[in-house]
């Protein structure tokens, strides 16, 4: 069984779960959690796509010498991307939580439908 494919499938499932959470949960903290799940799914897909069967992580250490790196490690680019994406996801989640804190300060409510001031 291709481990990469599994990762991609799981990733998509996680994305769907995340979207489901964002769309159905009224609690904004849960929405943020949904968003995190969505993000995690993304990361899983990225890692899954870059995975090559039987190879190791693209870290040049004692286990992998620079000489045979090309044949023994997986594609390093998605790995780099996923690291960046995780950082960005973290930032976004943090900011979202900051919003949650400030919103709660004002209204003492975590229900998203309490924050419909601007519309139409």
């Amino acid at each position, binding site marked *: 069984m291709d481990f990469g494919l599994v990762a991609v499938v799981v990733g998509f499932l996680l994305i769907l779960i995340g979207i489901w959470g*964002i769309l159905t949960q009224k609690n904004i903290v849960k929405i943020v959690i949904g968003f995190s799940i969505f993000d995690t799914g993304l990361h899983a897909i990225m890692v899954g796509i870059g995975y090559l069967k039987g190879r190791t992580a693209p870290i040049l250490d004692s286990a992998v010498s620079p000489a045979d790196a090309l044949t023994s490690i997986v594609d390093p680019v998605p790995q780099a991307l996923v690291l960046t994406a995780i950082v960005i996801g973290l930032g976004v989640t943090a900011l979202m939580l900051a919003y*949650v804190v400030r919103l709660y300060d004002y209204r003492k409510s975590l229900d998203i439908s309490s924050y419909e001031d*601007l519309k139409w």
Partner: protein
Amino acid sequence: MVDSILLNPIYIIGIGLGTSFILGFFKSGRFQAHPSAMHSERIKTAPWVLMIGALTVMTFISAEWLWSFLFNGQLPQQIYTAGFEPPFSINLLMGRNEAFFTLMVNLVGLLSGLYLLDKFKEMGTHALSVYLVLIMGLNGIIMTRDIFNLFVFLEIASIATAGLIVMTSDVKALSAGFKYMIATGLISGFLLIGIIFAYYFGGSLNIDSLAEANLTTVQGGVFAVFLIVVSLLLELKPFPANGWGIDAYEASPVGINAVISSASAGATYYVLSKVLIITDAKWYAVTAVVGIITFLGSNLMGIKQTNAKRMLGYSSVGQVGLLLVILGLSEQLGNSFKFIIFGIMMSHYLAKAGLFWLVGIVKTGILKDWGILRKKPVLVFFMGTFIFALLGLPPFPSFFAKWTLVLTLSAAGLNLWVGLILFGSLIEAVYLFRWFGYVLKLDADKERSLSTPFYRTFPVWLFGLLSYYIGYVASVMVPGGETLGMFYLPLAFVGFLFIIDRYLPVWVKNTLSMAAMALYGWYYMAGLSEFRMLFAIIFIGGGIVTMIAGYAKSGKRVGFYPFVVMMYIGLGGLLLSENILQFFISWELMTLGSYVLIIRGKKSMPHALSYMMFSLGGAFLILAGFGLAFAGSGVSSISLDILKNVTRYSGLIYTFLAIGFMTKTAVIGLHIWLPGAHAEAESDVSPMVSAILLKAGMFGLVVLMLAMGSQSLGGVSLPYLLGWLGAITALLGNLMAAFQEDAKRLLAYSSVGQLGYVVFAMAFMSHLGWLTALAFALNHFVFKALLFLAIGGVVMRTKTKTMYEMGGLIKRMPLSFISVLIGIIALSGLPPLTGFAGKWLSYNAVIEKGWYFQGFLVSIAGLVAFLYCFRLIHVIFLGQPKDKFKNIKEAPIAMLIPQYILIGVIMLFSLMPNMVLKPIGEFLVQYFPDGALQWDGGTAVSSLGRWSGVAIMNITIGIFGTILIWLLFMSRKAVKVKQFNIFYSGEAPSRPELTHYGYNFFAPYKKAVGFLVQPLVTRFWDGIADILHSISDFVRRLYNGNGQMYAFQVILFVVVFSIFTIG
């Protein structure tokens, strides 16, 4: 400048990041997390200065690069990070486009930074660094050539935006920011999946390499393309999945949404254009479709808005939609693509930033409170500039861009697109002009003051002036731009008038303007001939005569003269124009000038709006017509002669142009703007807009009909239709005039009817018909100017326009009475005055052509004219003088002088009609050789009858004089009695008000024929407006303010988009 001095563009990114890092070392100010702590500590100015310094350097770098690209032949430069070439590392590109876009971003960032001085002091250094990161991110978006790096910068930009919003202390803004985060989070997720799949199928992250990989041909690659395109489109806030964006526009502080609107829309747009190269034609088409839906949908929702920021949000989204359309159609637009994008983008950029800044200066979003802006006329001027620029009126860049866009699209056969774009622009005009109307007319809150520190007005000033400069640049670049020199000098004079406007008294400006117009006429018009000369006499000569009345005004009359002159320049430009570009610019200038003149009236706000809507609608039809003609003539020329060579669409072109021109002549169905606009205008504006301006439409018809002759559409001859339309207009216009209580409304409706005669007569397409039309037109010009001036004088003195409130004014204002008397005799076409010329000619033309029933309608219209003529003179001047007008004075001499000049013209024309009609007939012969009128001295001889104006005049005067002398002799000892010395059935009248028969004067007539003047047309247009507003109100309920709903809309958009593209 030498290459070596060019700073590496990477510094833009570096300085942005570095400075925001350094800013962290400053004392942060207290960031108020809790709503109870309302007063935050203000930070010092130094960090702000640092940020401004950084932005200045960033701006300078972009400017420097742009300069060397434009003038030093600099080649695009790749910047490789980490020393590797792509695809192994991230690369940035600095090319001409990048330089241009980064300059845009940095400039607006810098100016907004300035503008936000106060706000930043409140928000603290965190805000400063986040703001700087935002600008940096936008720069990165523009320059990067790496698709993942693009994602990063997009995230930076959107996180920074949300970060700025989170720092406001307003729960509404916070909730909007949260919604924004949810939506952008989802969108960037999709983008990320797209990127990773693109990498998987394309093997690279570099955009250029991906383009070579032809992803759309690879199985599965389409999915990557789909995700990238859809998420980038979503970043641009397409309708209807853009509620989160609109909310963010409304929520964020004004300086910041100026950046979001003008800079980030520009940047994101540029990204899309950059990324679309990895796709194929299908995706371009899809982009165009999304664009047009967004353009129409957003503008539609804009019309129901009452908050300036939200409205501008909708407008921004709409403008981006328009940009998407252009991008999507870039293939079809070919070489003009860049110019069009440049024009639209620049206008949007300058205008939107300027308008958002103005929102901050006015400090209220409620549109109806905007009258306060009038405290600073300069800002009103710039607001007008921005709105006109946004809507694509000359001389702003978007005008030239839209012009080129329409012409090019038409040439490519994409007529539906032209139609949709113009329709969307019209909807946009509705709310923007309504807003502008509020600013100009609504009462300001006297209590409030308008604080305008330099750092806030400077950006507005700069962008306002830039709009003109870029407009000039665009005008030079547009094909045919070299022929626009004729506008420079006159418009420079307008500019001069603007500058001196606030300092000089009215008589100086009046004299200057008259002198300038005389010079304009002398210098530019002297060489004209035939029709153009004739209209030049009406436009310029008539303009000068009516302007004499301006001396009656006192004070400064700020904001009047520049627009008067602009209107006349437009009118003159029509005559001078040799190509459709000049013609259309003139048309728009005239519309603009007259709009401002009309809206000056006390109650004319709604009427000016409807005037503008009909005028713009008409102008867009003309534009569409020109576009079709450009396409249909087969020669790629913009000369007016293309109308003669049209081979395709001729019926359609004729229809469009005719309807466009007839919005100005106010043919029935398109007339509802006229009565209000003319009636509510100031007393010396009414004659200008009625007697003179309406002839512009007629001149348009002259040009059209001479060039295209008779055309038919769907088997129906168009002139034949016009004939009926003109006849019906004449009858209904006159009937409506007969039932007005308002003197100026009466005259206005009379203009509708009179112009109906003109259209009717022109539709004959025969010698006599055109002679009739020109006689009518000349005559209408003279008597309507005369009447409007005379009635204007009366209104000036009595302060009322309602006729039945007046009465018996002949005793107090005999000179005005004589004017009106001569005017109505000329109007009703009674011999021996000039009006009869038109009547007699029209009968000849009718019999010759065989349009008996139309002719019959026009005759009846002429009879109905007696009714309102009499009503006008009787109810105002005859009957019982009222108590309160006992001491009223004659109209000011400055208003009487033009009246008597015009009376002189009428008398001259009546005595010697051959002097005018003969030369007209002579040049008409070359167009319509058959059926010319013969002249036997002063006697006109047609194949049907004869008419000797001189003889009739002399005989009539002879009889009249004899009888008058006889009567004077017989009643030489008559006692002069007063108003109550009347036989009142043995009683004596008690009050003049009860003894003056004036209200509902033609009551029995109304009873009998009132059914003909039901306001059906008004109801029709009102209905259209209502429907638009209802749709707008219905559709905007999509945006219910719930973040989940917005997220759902985003998802739904993705799903629907997928069904239509890859499904």
